[in-house]
C-alpha cells in the first residue's frame, strides 16, 4: 500500500472531520438539552447546502462568506420546527419523537427535491481555489478553509455554552431540566434556542461543505445516519465526544476508502457503530452504564 495514498487519506479525512464534528455537535446539543433525536438533521444540512447554492448562484455570494446567512436561516427553521412541532411532543414516548422527526425529514428532503430537482448540484467558491503541496501530499485550499471555519464555529459554540448566561442555562437544562425550571430558567426558551443552534451548526456545516462535494436532496439521509454514527460513537449529549467522534469517523471512512473501496467506506462507520452499540453504548465520552 502506497504510503502517500495513506497519508493523503489521513489528511483528507482529518480535514473533512471538521465538518463532521460541526454536524455532530449540533445533533448532540439538541439531544443533550432536549433528549430529542433529530432525525431530520441530515436534511437540514442539505437545506444549508442549497441555501449556500442559492446565495452563490442568485446573489454571487461566496459560500465561505455566505455560511453565516445559512446558519441564521437554519437557526430560524430550527426555531420554527421546535416551537411548532417538537415542543408539543416533548413528553411523549420516544417512538413518537422519532416518527415526528422522520416526518419532518421526509418533508424537508422532498421539498428540496421539488424545489431544486434531483440532479447533483455544486457550488463554486472563487475565494478558495487551488491546492497547496506538502511534499507528496496535496491539500485543496477549499478543504483547508472549510476545516478552519468549522473549527472556528465549534470554538465559538463552546464559548457560547461556557461563557454566556444563555449557554450555561442550556447546559443546566441538559443536566437537570426540572432543577433548571426550579431556579427560574425559561426552559421553553432554552429548548428553542438549543434546537435553533443545533440547526444553525448543521446549516453552516452544509454551506461549508458545498464547495467541496456535489450534493442532492437525497444526500440528507446518508448525512443523518453519519451524524447518528458519530454521536453514538462519541457519546450522546457529549460535546467533546461529538467533536472527537467527527474526526474519528471521518478518518475511519477515509481509510476505508483507501483500503477497501470508496463505495464501501460506509461499512467502516457502520461496523464501528454496531461495535459501539454493543460494547459501550454510552460512547467514548458518555457515562458507562452500571
Amino acid at each position, binding site marked *: 500500500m502506497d504510503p502517500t495514498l495513506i497519508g493523503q487519506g489521513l489528511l483528507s479525512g482529518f480535514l473533512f472531520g471538521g465538518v463532521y464534528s460541526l454536524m455532530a455537535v449540533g445533533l448532540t446539543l439538541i439531544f443533550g438539552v432536549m433528549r430529542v433525536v433529530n432525525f431530520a438533521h441530515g436534511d437540514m444540512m442539505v437545506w444549508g447546502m442549497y441555501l449556500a447554492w442559492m446565495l452563490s448562484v442568485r446573489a454571487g455570494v461566496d459560500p465561505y462568506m455566505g455560511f453565516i446567512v445559512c446558519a441564521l436561516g437554519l437557526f430560524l427553521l430550527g426555531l420554527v420546527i421546535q416551537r411548532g412541532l417538537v415542543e408539543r411532543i416533548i413528553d411523549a414516548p420516544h417512538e413518537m419523537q422519532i*416518527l415526528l422527526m422522520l*416526518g419532518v425529514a421526509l418533508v424537508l428532503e422532498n421539498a428540496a427535491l421539488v424545489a431544486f430537482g*434531483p440532479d447533483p448540484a455544486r457550488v463554486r467558491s472563487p475565494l478558495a481555489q487551488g491546492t497547496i503541496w506538502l511534499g507528496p501530499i496535496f491539500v485543496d485550499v477549499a478543504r483547508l478553509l472549510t476545516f478552519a471555519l468549522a473549527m472556528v464555529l465549534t470554538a465559538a459554540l463552546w464559548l457560547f455554552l461556557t461563557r454566556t448566561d444563555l449557554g450555561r442555562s442550556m447546559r443546566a437544562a441538559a443536566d437537570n431540566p426540572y432543577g433548571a425550571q426550579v431556579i427560574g430558567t425559561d426552559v421553553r426558551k432554552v429548548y428553542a434556542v438549543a434546537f435553533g443552534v443545533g440547526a444553525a451548526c448543521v446549516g453552516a456545516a452544509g454551506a461549508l461543505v458545498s464547495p467541496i462535494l456535489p450534493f442532492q436532496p437525497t444526500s440528507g*439521509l446518508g448525512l443523518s445516519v453519519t451524524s447518528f454514527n458519530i454521536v453514538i460513537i462519541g457519546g450522546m449529549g457529549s460535546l467533546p465526544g461529538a467533536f472527537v467522534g467527527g474526526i474519528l469517523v471521518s478518518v475511519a471512512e477515509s481509510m476505508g476508502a483507501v483500503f477497501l473501496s470508496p463505495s*464501501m467506506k460506509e461499512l467502516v462507520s457502520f*461496523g464501528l457503530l*454496531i461495535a459501539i*452499540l454493543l460494547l459501550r453504548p454510552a460512547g467514548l465520552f458518555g457515562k458507562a452504564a452500571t
Partner: protein
Amino acid sequence: MKILALLAVIGLVGLPWVVGSYLVTVMIFIFFYAYLGQAWNIVGGYAGQLSAGHAAFVGIGGYTAALLSARAGLSPWLGMWIGGVLAALLGAVIGYLGFRFGLRGFYFVLLTVAFAEICRVVALNVDAVGGALGLYITFTGNPRQFQFQDNRVYYYIALVLMLAATALVWFIERHRFGAYLTAIRQDESACEALGVDTLRVKMLAMVLSSFLTGIGGTFYAFYLFSLQPNAVFGIPLSVEIVIRPIVGGAGTVMGPLLGSFILSPLAEISRTYFAQGGWTGFHLIVYGVLLIAVVLFLPQGAYPALLRLVRRRAA
C-alpha cells in the same frame, strides 16, 4: 362487524373482473404493502420495537429467491421459503444483538438501519450478486417460476398474502403471545418482574416478522422483475413499510390495512398528477405531513380513532 369483513373480502375477490388493469395494479400494491406492514406490525406495532430497516428482509428474501432461480434453477415457490428463512436468520441476529444488549428506542432503530445499510452497500458492491446493476429476471410467464401472464394472478396472490398475515396477527392478538407483546410494549421491566421471558418473546416476534417480510421479498422480485440494491434495501422502502401501520394504527389488526388503503392511493394520485410538473417526490411530502399529523393528533393511528368515532355515534 364480521359480516362487513366478509362482504369486503367477497368484494375484493370479485374486483379484478370488473375493473381495468391499472386499478388492479394499484390494488396489488395496496395489498402487498399492507402485507409487509402487517409483518412489521408484529414486532414494530405489537412488541413496540421500532425497526427502520425492514427493507433488509425484503432484499434478502428477494435476492435469495432470484439467485436460486437464476443460478440453480430452483423454483421461486421453493426459493421463497429459503429466502424467508435467511431473512429470519438476519432478523434473529439483529434481534439478539439488540435485545440481549438492551438496546431500546432510538438505539434499536439505529441498529436496524445500520444492518439494512450494510446489506445495501454489500449488495451494491459484490458483483457476484449483481452489483450496482442489480438482478434482472427474464420474463418467461411460467407459473412454475412464479411468473404469470395475467396481472390478476398476482392480484390474488397479494390478496392472499395480506389476508393470511392479517389472520395471523388476529390470532396472535387473541392468544398468550399477543398479550405478552402488548404488555412488553407498555412496560418491559414490569413484565420481567412478573415472570415473562421478554427476550424470548421479542426474539420470536422479530424472527416471525422478518420471516414473513422475507417471503414478501420473493413476490417483490418476481412481480417487478428486477432487484436494485438501493431500491430493495434502502430506507425509502423501509419508510413505505413502516408508515402504513403507523398511520393506520400500530399494534392493531386493521391498522396496516387501513394505512395502506389510505396511503397507496394518495401516493398514486400525487405521482400521477404531480410527477409531470417536476414535482417528483411530492407524495413523500404528503407522507411526511401525514406522519407529523398522526404523531401530533392521532398518536394511536387512524383505526383506533375511527373506532372511537363509530362508538360515539352508536352511543
